[in-house]
């Protein structure tokens, strides 16, 4: 037995020695290392011809011009388009990674289209008198918005609802001093490239409680006691002494005087975070109306479209009377907190939302239908707050739709019994017919007066990501501009004031946004709030702890970041639908350790 075992060992030993003298082990060692260099599961990027294609970003009303670098037709990176007169080649971080959206893992990929159609039809048929069918359009001013409006006009009792619209444009180039009450100029307020280009002209005074990106870029930042902006405005308007205002707002009297001086030195404009804020009425005092705050002009449209339902704000809608609510959330826009909508619904209302994200109204609707996302479909983009001349630009699709999406305009059209139309093309025709303005063709890198372009070429260029810009007309003061009076802030014992430090529209964002939100602390993620060190200590919270943000309207699980630049008594949050539902309108909150 010993001999056989010993011999077996010798056999193995001989085998090992022999193997070392062959290429096999060495090659296997090399191969395993090479295997690790071509690690399994790593995608191999597709190779192919490289082309540039153009489109416009639909993620916000700025509608920046986008140049897509495509490999074998697939966009792999996006950049701005330098010659574009408004966006100046700038893109925000969301826009830079917009081409990831179709593949977002959390995207709404399917929905009960048949069921929704049937339920809506049944509800319309069965609705009682005084009950309405309504479309809530989060991004009014688009061409499809007119489709919605026309459809609502065609339906008996149809309502066309929108979030509050500014009703004016800001011509930043005409301002020497900008007094901003928390308007996020550098973070989503208007068109990034336009603001940056105008920045060298005006002096920026930023009035807000926390040092946002805009405050950091301002010439003067006035850290104000949260909620006391109206007192400061009253002082500027001369309704209160500077000393009184200084006491209330926490801003030094000298600083207030400096602001007043700057404001009155001419060509000042006042901007507010909420474009419909009463603070905007200060512009009247500074003579900004008609100079900086100007009337918005729209691109020409077909005559037939004038038969449209009027824009109506949610507050104006009758209570308990909306039987069918169709929410077009295909492009993220101004989110109206659900608690403002719920009272308007009839008891057995049918709510359908067209969206790509589960974060917004999808949480409240019975039927969630998948919508296409940028850059899958052709769309035009509503006007931005800082574009003065009318523009018509189309987000040309860069990729084939990844999921079978429902087009909300088609859905509404069909509901109203309107014939299927090609609204974009019709409108392009109307613009061409009007004959004004210039056509920007990025592919050929040239701009041509419209009157020198044939209608077909006009449409062709637009549908490949071109842009029409109106001639700069005379600035006029906006009409019917009425700002509501400042209301009393609601009473709430919660110790912290909510400050939205990070405006955010909701909707999908590229998975790579983790670079800014989780892999660095550059931006507050939607589920993060920032507290001052003292505030955190008072709640027994450490950096990175899980906590619950609690307001009068609900609770939200959040992660707390401690940030010494946050003043005591303030909780910084990022915007977005969840936050809007939680604290929109009433900014008092409490943060409790989870």
């Amino acid at each position, binding site marked *: 037995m010993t001999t056989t075992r010993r011999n077996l060992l010798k056999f193995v030993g001989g085998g090992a020695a022999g193997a070392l003298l062959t290429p096999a082990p060495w090659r296997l060692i090399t191969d395993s290392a090479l295997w690790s*260099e071509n*690690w399994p*599961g*790593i*995608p191999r*990027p*597709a190779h192919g011809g490289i082309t540039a294609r153009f489109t416009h970003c639909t993620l916000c009303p700025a509608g920046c011009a986008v140049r897509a670098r495509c*490999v074998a037709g*697939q*966009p*792999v*990176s*996006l*950049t*701005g388009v330098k010659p574009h007169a408004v966006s100046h*080649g*700038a*893109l*925000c*971080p969301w826009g*830079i990674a917009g081409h*990831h959206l*179709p*593949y*977002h*893992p959390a995207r709404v990929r399917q929905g009960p289209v048949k069921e929704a159609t049937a339920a809506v039809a049944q509800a319309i048929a069965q609705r009682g008198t005084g009950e309405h069918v309504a479309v809530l359009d989060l991004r009014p001013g688009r061409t499809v918005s007119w489709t919605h409006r026309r459809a609502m006009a065609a339906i008996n009792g149809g309502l066309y609802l929108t979030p509050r619209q500014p009703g004016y444009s800001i011509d930043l180039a005409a301002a020497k001093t900008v007094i901003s009450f928390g308007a996020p100029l*550098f*973070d989503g307020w208007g068109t*990034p490239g336009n603001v*940056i280009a105008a920045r060298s002209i005006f002096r920026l005074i930023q009035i807000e409680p926390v*040092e946002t990106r805009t405050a*950091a870029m301002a010439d003067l930042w006035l*850290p104000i006691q949260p909620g006391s902006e109206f007192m400061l405005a009253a002082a500027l308007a001369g309704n209160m002494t500077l000393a009184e205002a200084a006491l209330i707002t*926490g801003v030094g009297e000298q600083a207030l005087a400096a602001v007043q001086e700057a404001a009155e030195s001419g060509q000042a404009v006042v901007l507010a975070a909420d474009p419909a804020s009463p603070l905007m009425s200060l512009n009247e005092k500074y003579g900004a109306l008609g100079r900086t705050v100007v009337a918005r002009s729209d691109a020409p449209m077909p005559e037939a479209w004038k038969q449209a339902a009027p824009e109506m704000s949610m507050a104006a809608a009758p209570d308990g009377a909306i039987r069918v609510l169709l929410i077009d959330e295909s492009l993220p826009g101004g989110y109206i907190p659900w608690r403002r909508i719920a009272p308007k619904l009839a008891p057995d209302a049918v709510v359908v939302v067209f969206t790509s994200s589960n974060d917004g109204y999808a949480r409240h609707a019975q039927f969630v239908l998948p919508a296409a996302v940028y850059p899958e479909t052709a769309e035009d983009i509503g006007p931005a707050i800082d574009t003065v001349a009318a523009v018509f630009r189309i987000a040309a699709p860069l990729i084939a739709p*990844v999921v079978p999406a429902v087009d909300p305009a088609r859905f509404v059209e069909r509901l109203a019994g309107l014939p299927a139309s090609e609204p974009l093309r019709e409108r392009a025709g109307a613009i061409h017919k009007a004959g004004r303005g210039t056509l920007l063709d990025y592919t050929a890198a040239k701009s041509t007066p419209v009157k020198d372009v044939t209608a077909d070429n006009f449409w062709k260029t637009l549908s490949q990501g071109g842009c029409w810009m109106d001639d700069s007309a005379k600035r006029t003061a906006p009409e019917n501009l009425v700002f509501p009076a400042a209301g009393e802030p609601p009473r709430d014992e919660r110790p912290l004031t909510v400050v939205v430090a990070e405006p955010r529209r909701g909707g999908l964002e590229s*998975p*790579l*946004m*983790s*670079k*800014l939100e*989780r*892999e*660095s*602390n*550059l*931006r507050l993620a939607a589920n993060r709030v*920032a507290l*001052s*060190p003292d505030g955190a200590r008072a709640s027994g919270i450490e*950096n*990175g702890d899980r906590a619950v943000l609690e307001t009068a309207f609900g609770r939200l699980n959040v992660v707390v*970041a*401690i*940030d*010494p*630049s*946050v*003043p*005591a008594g303030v909780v910084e949050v990022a915007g977005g639908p969840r936050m809007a539902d939680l604290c929109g309108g009433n900014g008092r909150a409490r943060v409790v350790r989870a």
Partner: protein
Amino acid sequence: MTPRKRYGMSIDIDKCNGCGACMMACAVENNVPPVPEAANDRKGITWIRVYRVDNHRAYPERRTAYVPVLCQQCGHDTPCVHVCPQQAVDVDPETGIVGQMPERCLGCRYCMVACPYHARYFNWWDPAWPAGMEKTLNPNVAPRMRGVVEKCNFCHGRWHAAQQKAAAAGKREIDAADYVPACVEACPTGALRFGDLDDPSTEVAHDAARPESFRLLEKIGTEPKIHYRSQRDWVRDIANAPHPDGKDQHRG
């Protein structure tokens, strides 16, 4: 071997509004994957990372500036190059760019310890893109595998593309306009500029010579090629060693 080019960058901190477009453009260009939920700011991969820096005062005197930090492309005694045990890091003599070779990298992370700028990142996870998103990968940059270190190389894929373009035209010298890193291209405020520091006609060479220009930790003698500048005294102070009084800083 004298480098034929000495690429560098100038960053105007006063212009940076901290939007993060450079970080996104970088990740898109260089096929950096999104990280799993478990990752935090110390386990992520951001070849360029915008830090929020402050003047160490309390609210309301506290002021913030945004400082993009990427590989500083040290030009002398490059700390990461001579610590790497297996030559996975080298300096390209033609461009002066410090290159990191993920396929040679052992993952020992010694270079990360050596780098004072924390500009090197380790792949703690298997890189993973949501289904379909792999279609958006840039073919000029190879995705990395788990367990290796990576860092900024001034978008070297773009250098290759520019060279390729020059070769197609029968030239050996690239056109400067063809080679701009993604972050510089993406910066909406024009805070970032890029070019050959040895060529006095370039903007960067001019920027680097300005009196308000400085480099991070200049005194340790690594000759970084990223030149920052700011008109504000307290911002220029970030070039120096840390202050212990900044230790309560958390979001940074």
